[in-house]
């Protein structure tokens, strides 16, 4: 009877992609849970965190006896000495740094992509990205300060500066050194994100085509490639903008001091002994979020205006034919400059780590010693282990969630449900667009409220919030590009989707997966505020140790901990490169993807 019924049903009903093999529970319960689950992973902390910041911003903080809603915190914020200059500092440094980073990244692409030279740049990107911002800023300060290495070199050559000159080369009031540090750190990130989408833009073919029609290379880049490239790296760029406007650690190290940037001012309010100032800090954090949103909307409008202008120009201008070889040369110069800054920073950090005494104007330390290494090694075991566990677990969890989400995307598209990739993209980017300072304090309060604070599991969760987006962004490209016919082929041969997934899809995607893990690993290691606040100080990582040491005066210790902080992510990236090479050493097709 049932059999007969089924054949009748089959005759009448459309077959579609129903998959009779999959247990009903999996189909009806498991998969539909994936999108809300993954979204909740990072949205719940953000929502609670924002609420926990917004309430104090409007005067509600019962812990200090403030339970009346008012605009008092906002008035106090606006009247805080230096508020408007701090706001200006934030806008100037944040906007210039992010836009300059984008321009330089595009300029390097224009001048050097594709070329042997660019391949060299590409290989240097992961190590550059794995250097934590704060460590880089400190090292860069060693380089350019009035008593820094550059001036010591100059003095060594010319003897012109027996004492450090009175120049303002670091932490200048305008924020030039802060902009420099940010540009040096963000340009590689944008290049990295651009590299992920460039293959789909078919740059070589476009250049070839346009030049065969007698137009210049600049024309091709400016009007044909950049607009499409920008469209694809817009969200990473927005993340850079949000980061530059709200960064705290490097703004303290390299930014202006009186007044500092708004983010630093807010942190000072949060840290003020006068507890009422926390409501002012909360108002500032809320304002900062508003500023980021307004700037991002402004940038979107600007983009539309430029697009319209481009369209007009394309129709009306004579297309330049000249091929500007000068851009090729200057792109090389710029990349050499960036590379030198990194190598110089690393070298001087290494030198400081083995220094005993080192004064101006000596170019090399007066005496060497391994004391700092020895002292730190004595007590790094626990932070090391904690850092490692957090990093590996958060990136693995994020990887599993991301793969589930991407598989669900595939499943939905098989069912022909509309999957809005751009909406997913926005959602995933949210944690990167919302300033950490605007929700991490509130999140902490929420966790305490539910009795979940100071536990490893919630600390892991807070890391996951920031690791997840990067893991998603790194993996989604290669994962979506995977030729699903391989899975189909596998299915006709061995059946069972999960077997096909394990034996075919996963190994074929091993390289991007390992790379993704390394990225997540590096992101987790860099987390400071979440580790401190969500962990309630009970968990120390290499990064919390590094920040603690950076508040002291001992540069040798700072150098050692900064090097440790760079070593872990570097090892992760190195393994991500070496493991596939070893595993697939007899598989030529797997060695380059």
């Amino acid at each position, binding site marked *: 009877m049932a059999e007969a019924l089924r054949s009748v049903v089959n005759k009448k009903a459309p077959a579609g992609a129903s998959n009779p093999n999959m247990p009903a529970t999996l189909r009806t319960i498991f998969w539909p849970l994936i999108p809300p689950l993954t979204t909740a992973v990072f949205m719940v902390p953000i929502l609670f965190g924002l609420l926990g910041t917004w309430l104090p911003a409007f005067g509600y903080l019962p812990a200090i006896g403030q339970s009346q809603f008012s605009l008092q915190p906002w008035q106090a914020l606006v009247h805080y000495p230096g508020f408007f200059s701090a706001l200006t500092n934030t806008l100037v440094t944040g906007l210039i740094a992010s836009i300059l980073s984008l321009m330089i990244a595009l300029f390097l692409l224009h001048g050097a992509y594709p070329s042997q030279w660019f391949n060299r740049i590409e290989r240097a990107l992961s190590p550059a990205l794995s250097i934590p911002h704060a460590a880089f800023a400190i090292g860069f300060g060693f380089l350019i300060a009035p008593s820094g290495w550059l001036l010591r070199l100059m003095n060594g050559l010319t003897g012109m500066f027996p004492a450090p000159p009175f120049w303002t080369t670091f932490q200048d009031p305008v924020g030039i050194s802060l902009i420099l540090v940010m540009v040096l750190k963000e340009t590689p990130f944008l290049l990295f994100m651009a590299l992920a989408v460039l293959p789909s833009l078919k740059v070589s073919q476009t250049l070839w085509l346009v030049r065969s029609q007698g137009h210049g290379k600049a024309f091709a880049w400016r009007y044909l490639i950049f607009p499409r490239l920008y469209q694809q790296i817009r969200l990473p760029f927005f993340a850079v903008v949000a980061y530059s406007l709200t960064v705290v650690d490097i703004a303290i190290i390299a930014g202006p001091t009186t*007044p500092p940037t708004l983010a630093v001012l807010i942190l000072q309010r949060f840290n003020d002994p006068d507890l009422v100032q926390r409501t002012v800090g909360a108002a500032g954090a809320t304002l900062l979020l508003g500023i980021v949103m307004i700037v991002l909307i402004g940038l979107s409008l600007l983009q539309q205006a430029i697009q319209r202008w481009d369209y007009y120009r394309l129709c009306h201008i004579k297309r330049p034919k000249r091929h500007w070889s000068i851009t090729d040369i200057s792109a090389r110069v710029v990349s050499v400059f960036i590379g030198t800054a990194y190598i110089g920073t690393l070298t001087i950090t290494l030198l400081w780590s083995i220094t005993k005494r080192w004064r101006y104007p000596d170019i090399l330390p007066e005496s060497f010693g391994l004391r700092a290494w020895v*002292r730190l090694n004595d007590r790094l075991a626990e932070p090391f282990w904690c850092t490692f566990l957090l990093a590996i677990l958060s990136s693995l969890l994020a990887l599993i969630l991301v793969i589930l989400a991407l598989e669900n995307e595939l499943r939905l598209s098989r069912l022909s449900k509309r999957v809005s990739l751009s909406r997913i993209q926005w959602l995933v980017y949210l944690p990167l667009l919302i300033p950490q300072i605007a929700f991490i304090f509130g999140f902490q309060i929420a966790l305490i409220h539910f009795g979940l604070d100071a536990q490893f599991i919630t600390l892991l969760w807070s890391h996951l919030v920031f690791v997840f987006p990067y893991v998603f962004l790194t993996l989604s490209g290669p994962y979506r590009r995977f030729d699903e016919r391989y899975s189909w082929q596998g299915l006709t041969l061995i059946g069972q989707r999960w077997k096909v997934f394990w034996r075919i899809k996963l190994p074929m995607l091993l390289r991007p997966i390992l790379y993704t893990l390394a990225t997540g690993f590096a992101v987790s290691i860099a987390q400071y505020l979440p580790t401190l606040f969500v962990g309630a100080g009970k968990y120390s990582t290499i990064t919390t140790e590094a920040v*603690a040491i950076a508040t002291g005066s001992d540069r040798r210790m700072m150098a050692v901990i900064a090097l440790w902080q760079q070593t872990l992510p570097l090892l992760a990236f190195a393994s991500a490169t070496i493991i596939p090479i070893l595993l697939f050493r007899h598989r030529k097709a797997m060695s380059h993807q």
Partner: protein
Amino acid sequence: MNAAFFARTVFLRAIFSRAIGVLLFGLLLQANAADWQDTLKEAKGQSVYFHAWGGDENINAYIQWAIDQVKEKYDVEVKHVKNVAPNAITQILSEKSAGKDSGGAVDLMWVNGENFANMKRNNLLYGAFTQDLPNYQYVDTEHKPTTLYDFTVPVENLEAPWGMAQLVFLHDTDVVKKAPSSAAELLEFAHKNPGRFTYPAPPAFHGTTFIKQILLELTDDRDALYKPVQDADFDKITKPLWIYLDELHPLMWQKGKVFTDGAPRMTQLLNDGEIAISLSFNPFAASNAIATGELPDTVRTHIHASGTIANTHFVAIPYNSSSVEGAMVFANFLMSPEAQARKANTDIWGDPTVLAMDKLSAQDRARFDDLPKGVATLSNEELANVLLEPHASWVEALEAEWLKRYGQ
């Protein structure tokens, strides 16, 4: 009620309660000893999260030593959380916001001054406890009044004295032949050596202390500074300070347009030769830094002839600490002659003791006798020249005015 009268009453009341305390002390000694045994028993096996600044490896190593000691002696497991006081307060405050009135994450914290005053005002402290600690009897409350008044705020046994601090200046004898002995001479130095002095921007703690020091030196109404700022003619009293700073700033490092964020950064600048005079809150800082190679051995310490601001730093137990007994045991150990003597050793940390030598047994006193002092440290006599911290309310007012004038 006039302010002077008010201040005097507060002071008298404090003295009176102390007198009663001393009186009762003898009577309660035995009862206390029994109580202390209970505390020790309770503390056994407890975990204590001790939040303390972790920027100095000497201090970290010292704290680690103390941790090992109490583990061995009392079976109390202390963990050093390398966290600054404001962050620890944020933690406690967040817990209070969420209604977590016990089982908090901070069990003991390193604190003083304005942070203490604010915690006290907002009821974030556990309560009076130091009177129950056996080692508290050795504290030199008579000659070190800052162990009773933290920035003039009565301590009331809410925090246990840990160490003494005094503002000292560090100078490089290669550049500075004669160290300035007053605010006026410092200005003179700046005129002769433009760009070679700076101080941290308030509200950074060292910066605020520096402007308080200058104000104390320049003002002709010092008494007003020891009363709440609300009762004083702020503009009139602080006028000499602003005139002084207006003149000093253009002569400072980076023409006074860039400031450091604290004394640690100034130590680096001193080593770099960018500045020639720096400051510290630890009288042994110079000797220490020379010993580790952080500063050249041409650096020496000096203070101003009028004396310099001194205060005490403490450890306090938050109201919702999870391991009160464990925290007390650790706080008590930190005050012990053994721990205090080790702390005063410049080879280890070099932080002056809060204890009174004449209250110690001969054996304990001997621990302090042979301590190395270091090449760049002033003698005890020189350091005895001490100024008290102004009333805590001045801090905020001075910082706000400074920011208004120089911070925008």
